[in-house]
């Protein structure tokens, strides 16, 4: 099998397509097993503790028909995406600025690390006090959650840049802006995408947890509301919707990553 697999990978696309089919089939099999296990859990534990998959599916369809699904997803996405965007811009720009001044960088670093230790969710009551119960407190939590991940991966990426490439560019007449854009940014892209992938589910989770606390809509609000009225099916439906949301966003990031890092000699099947 390994021999055949290796040869297949080297020779042509036809066996590669066949292998892809095997992978897809394997994934489907796992999904079926998961749903079966889920069904088994629901039957043994009872529907109060464990909602049955069919009930959950029916609920999602109902939510979709009534328009509530779209409204909740839109609300959650709006907060996640905005927080995510702010965090990415800040998390990338700050390391670039700190790089320009090693002294400021050393002075500031312990404070950034210390502030990272603040439990973000614990800020919620205080944030509500400040910003009320609109999107803003959730936005702050999401932004903070994502910011540190992007900040740390970007900083690591900047440290990992091959200094010889920078020296080459300087000799060739590149200014600092060109070096930042053409050398440092390009070579830290793999780090950045790793950060994105770690941060994305967290951004959605943080939004949902935020919605537990303060919200009138959103996936998190729906889960919390269902919990309050002891609607297990609703809780499960909300969780499934959240998972699908994360998977969908991840798929989009994968597409962008594949385009941005097309130059890399990485085997396609190795992608996460």
């Amino acid at each position, binding site marked *: 099998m390994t021999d055949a697999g290796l040869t297949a990978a080297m020779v042509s696309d036809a066996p590669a397509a066949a292998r892809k089919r095997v992978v897809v089939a394997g994934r489907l099999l796992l999904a079926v097993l998961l749903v079966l296990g889920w069904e088994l859990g629901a039957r043994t534990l009872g529907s109060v503790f464990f909602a049955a998959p069919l009930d959950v599916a029916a609920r999602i369809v109902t939510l979709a028909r009534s328009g509530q699904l779209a409204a909740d997803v839109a609300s959650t996405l709006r907060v996640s995406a905005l927080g995510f965007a702010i965090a990415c811009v800040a998390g990338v720009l700050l390391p670039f600025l700190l790089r320009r001044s090693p002294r400021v960088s050393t002075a500031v670093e312990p404070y950034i690390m210390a502030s990272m230790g603040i439990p973000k969710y614990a800020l919620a009551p205080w944030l509500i006090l400040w910003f009320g119960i609109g999107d803003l407190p959730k936005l702050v939590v999401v932004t903070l959650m994502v910011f540190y991940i992007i900040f740390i991966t970007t900083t690591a990426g900047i440290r990992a840049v*091959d200094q*010889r*490439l920078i*020296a*080459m*560019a*300087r*000799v*060739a*007449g*590149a*200014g600092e802006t*060109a070096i930042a854009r*053409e*050398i440092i940014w*390009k*070579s830290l*892209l793999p780090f950045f995408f790793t950060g994105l992938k770690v941060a994305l589910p967290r951004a959605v989770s943080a939004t949902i947890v935020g919605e537990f606390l303060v919200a009138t809509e959103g996936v998190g609000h729906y889960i919390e509301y269902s919990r309050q009225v002891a609607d297990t099916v609703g809780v499960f439906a909300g969780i499934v919707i959240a998972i699908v949301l994360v998977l969908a966003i991840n798929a989009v990031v994968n597409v962008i990553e594949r385009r941005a*890092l097309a*130059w*890399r*000699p990485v085997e396609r099947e190795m992608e996460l």
Partner: protein
Amino acid sequence: MSDPTLLEIRNLGKRFPARHGREPSPWVIQDLSFSVGTGEFLTIIGPSGAGKSTLLNMIAQIDTASAGEIVFNGETVNSHDARMLRPGFDRRIGYVTQDDNLLPWRTTIDNVLFPIEVQGRLNDETRAQADVLVRAVGLAGFERYYPHELSGGMRKRAALIRTLAYDPPVILMDEPFAAVDAQTRTQLQADLLTLWGLGRKTIIFVTHDITEAIALGDRALVLSRQPTRIAAEHAIPIPRPRNVQDIFALEGFAAVYQRIRSDIQ
């Protein structure tokens, strides 16, 4: 030789500064002086660890000198302070390093055009010139390949023409062909001589290979060990154009080779 002096190195010295309770290093390079004329092909031969790369880094202004000065076209540059360095001397000194330092995310042609692009000189004319160079070194058809898809020799060629493409009057070369096999190296040397013949740039070419130094240079300097100084200087009386493959057979080769060898020992 008889050409006017373009670049002069005066009493250059290098020692690495004290750090973390470590004493400053002894002088790695000390009191090193030489000059290069316009259009001259100067080779510098030194054993490994003789500070050859350090010397070129100082001339390229990406490393500080601890003593001495560099005079370019009558302009004296004090490069003792890292903040005063002017890497590449405002695009007048190109540097082909030992590693090809190609940008892995750029294709061959985009790597070759990189200096021109960051200098803001990208236009139809500069693109056409780069194209000519790509063809001249046999990289036509590989313009859209990424560095990891090229052979070692192709990468060396790409790195070489990247520097030639933006046309700096002086080019430093740090054992650029050391990491390739003997046959490819001979081909690369021949290519380099052809390209040099077209533009007659000033080249300072550092190598540990005596044959290479003789095959390429108008003049060869021999470096001493620890601290590095100029131990000897030899004019290379072999007429051009030279056939690199048969350089051993050419008149004058054996004599120069013997003299340089005895200098090194």
